[in-house]
């Protein structure tokens, strides 16, 4: 790099090894473009020809207390931001394709999915025993083990540990569990500073937004959005949207905070009962910094993360990164079992509704989820509406079936944000029947009158028509198509999210019933069915 390339803030911030602004991604030792971690296989980004064409970032669903989330409304705003929508859609579809390539590279892929699903089913149906085993082993390792009934309990426990040590700052790695517990929001009032150290999660924290994806938290943002957030919060050059500059700025900005932190915290991908080990799968090295630099370390564990033995990691690790990223493994697979010399180690086992969900016959298998995000990447609704449109910690297909267990009213509309194409179920590494559970939730919510009035009315009208063959055929016969017959509001109304951003396909000129009647049926019978007789 020539001296002219380095000017202004880049000079002060940039390490000599940081790539040039023109580099769109790292290359390997043999010169090949690399696409490990969450990298794209080819450059995908929001590239407005002129600066004036840039658009503001569409924001997520409007949260109004306990009122049902209007996902469709937020999705509409996302669709109205074409630069964001296109980059988001392409980026996640690219991840999905990487996943396919990685999965097809393993002949035993389907067998691994079966095994993973069976190991999880076994562990969940013996969860009491495995939790006790985990606890006993962790204690024997010198670890302090805590049990949290719910999110508030978790936050109080962690706050208590921090207070006991006089901690003023906590560095943490990305954890969906702590998002679910609202940990950061709770801590905001305590005088203890929480610093996210994953780049994507830090971007979201600095922008005061929730993560929009379980693996890539800031995937809905363009580099221009990130440049604006960093300029405002870290004083970087607002005109410099080079991803290398932005990532390096965050590194330089965060490192002193890591070095001086009083405590570190991680989430947990897998908790091993036989050894009391917490396993994290990460790419940036920040979970290992959180666990290895401060003298106090805390690991928050959802109780469904238990697996019986170390050897089972041989199944789950081969599935996780391939499903999530299309890579054979993450950069770091870390096994925290016992304390370092001079450190203190705490593990918090969090229930927060999981033990109740275990008793829901149709929905307990959602506890098998390993948070790979594959169902989100493949979902046409998710890709076109963005994770924040769901207004919940978990978005996309897995969110549709988990979120209502936390709050049936607030998340009552979410199970309707699906085309029911079943793609989520097909890519799930632990074989959760996601689309069937989405359908089952619709039934539960309808029976419990959690469905909004408009949707109820629409479904009632459709139900009446569909249950009466004569009325249905009359309607079809009068026009060419059922789609044209259904009132336009029923197809393109705000609740029918998949009528958004596309027109319904043209329907055949003649219905199958009419064709059958003309060509295959004897006239007497035809007259009878015309009157609506049931054969």
């Amino acid at each position, binding site marked *: 790099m020539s001296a002219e390339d380095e000017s202004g803030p880049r000079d002060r911030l940039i390490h000599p090894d940081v790539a040039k602004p023109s580099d769109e*991604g790292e290359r390997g030792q043999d010169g090949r473009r690399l696409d490990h971690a969450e990298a794209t296989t080819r*450059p995908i980004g929001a590239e407005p020809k002129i600066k004036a064409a840039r658009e503001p970032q569409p924001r997520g669903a409007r949260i109004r207390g306990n009122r049902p989330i209007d996902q469709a409304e937020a999705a509409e705003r996302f669709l109205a931001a074409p630069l964001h929508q296109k980059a988001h859609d392409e980026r996640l579809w690219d991840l999905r394709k990487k996943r396919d390539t990685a999965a097809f590279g393993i002949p035993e892929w389907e067998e691994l999915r079966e095994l993973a699903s069976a190991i999880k089913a076994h562990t969940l149906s013996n969860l009491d025993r495995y939790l006790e085993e985990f606890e006993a082993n962790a204690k024997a390792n010198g670890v302090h083990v805590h*049990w949290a009934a719910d999110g508030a309990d978790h936050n109080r426990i962690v706050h208590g540990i921090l207070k006991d040590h006089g901690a003023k700052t906590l560095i943490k790695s990305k954890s969906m569990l702590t998002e679910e517990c609202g940990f950061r929001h709770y801590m905001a009032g305590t005088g203890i500073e929480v610093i996210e150290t994953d780049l994507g999660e830090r971007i979201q924290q600095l922008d005061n937004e929730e993560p929009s994806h379980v693996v890539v938290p800031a995937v809905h943002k363009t580099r221009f959005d990130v440049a604006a957030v960093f300029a405002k919060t870290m004083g970087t050059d607002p005109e410099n949207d080079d*991803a290398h500059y932005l990532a390096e700025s965050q590194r330089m900005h965060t*490192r002193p905070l890591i070095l001086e932190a009083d405590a570190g915290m991680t989430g947990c991908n897998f908790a091993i009962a*036989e050894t009391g080990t917490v396993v994290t799968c990460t790419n940036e090295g920040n979970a290992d910094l959180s666990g290895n630099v401060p003298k106090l370390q805390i690991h928050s564990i959802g109780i469904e993360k238990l697996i019986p033995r170390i050897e089972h990691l041989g199944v789950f690790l081969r599935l996780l990164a391939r499903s999530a990223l299309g890579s054979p493994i993450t950069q770091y*697979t*870390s096994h925290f079992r016992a304390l*370092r010399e001079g450190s203190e180690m705490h593990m918090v086992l969090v229930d927060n509704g999981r033990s109740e969900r275990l*008793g829901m016959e149709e929905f307990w298998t959602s506890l098998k989820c390993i948070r790979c995000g594959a169902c989100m990447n493949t979902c046409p609704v998710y890709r076109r509406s963005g994770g924040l449109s769901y207004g919940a910690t978990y978005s996309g297909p897995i969110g549709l079936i988990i979120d209502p267990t936390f709050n049936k009213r607030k998340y009552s509309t979410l199970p309707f944000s699906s085309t029911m194409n079943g793609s989520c179920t097909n890519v799930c590494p632990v074989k959760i029947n996601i689309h069937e559970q989405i359908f089952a939730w619709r039934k539960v919510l309808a029976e419990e009158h959690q469905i909004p009035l408009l949707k109820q009315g629409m479904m009632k009208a459709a139900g009446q028509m569909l249950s009466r063959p004569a009325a249905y055929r009359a309607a079809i016969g009068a026009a060419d198509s059922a789609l044209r017959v259904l009132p336009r509001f029923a197809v393109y109304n705000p609740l029918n999210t998949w009528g958004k951003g596309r027109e319904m396909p043209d329907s055949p000129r003649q219905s199958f019933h009419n064709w059958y009647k003309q060509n295959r049926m004897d006239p007497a019978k035809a007259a009878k069915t015309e009157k609506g007789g049931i054969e």
Partner: protein
Amino acid sequence: MSAREETLARIRRNRPAGSHPLPDIPDFAPLVGDDLVIEFGERLKRMGGRIGSPEGGDAFASVRERLASAKIIASAVPEIDGNRDLSQVALPKDLADVDVAIVRAVFGVAETGSVLFTEEELKVNSVAYLAQHLVVLLDPANILVNIQAAYRRSDFASAAYAVLHTGPSATADIEGVLIHGAQGVRSLTVILLPRG
């Protein structure tokens, strides 16, 4: 009742119906060819790592330039001396100024290009993340065929901290642009060198 007792009681009350036996894990055929050294190197490179071999009697030929430009070198191996003694480190954060750290891996994994460290090899765990660059010595005889074989080893049950590194620290959180050195090391170079 405590949160512990409540959670365990709910789990017992809500136990899913049916029989869910723990399946046996079969031995899967390796995905890699017989030459584990070549397979390991290929996969490591795809994950952003570099591979080096001794040249003309110099084990460190592939990282000589890197070492020459480094001000602070922390060595955890007898094969090379650094100028930062890892046995004299008071706090993990004191290693923040290390340019190059050199450590030996317990083993490598051909399927993924990973190397394993425990607290034994690292001396101070934080050195593997705070250093700007990581140089790893790996005995070619210590390369396992796959992840499944790795998890049959006893290291995970005995070490307080065990970690598989596969290439350097990486992120692509901004528009999918791959960047090495997100928070941890900017590069990871494995040198194939038998144990002394």
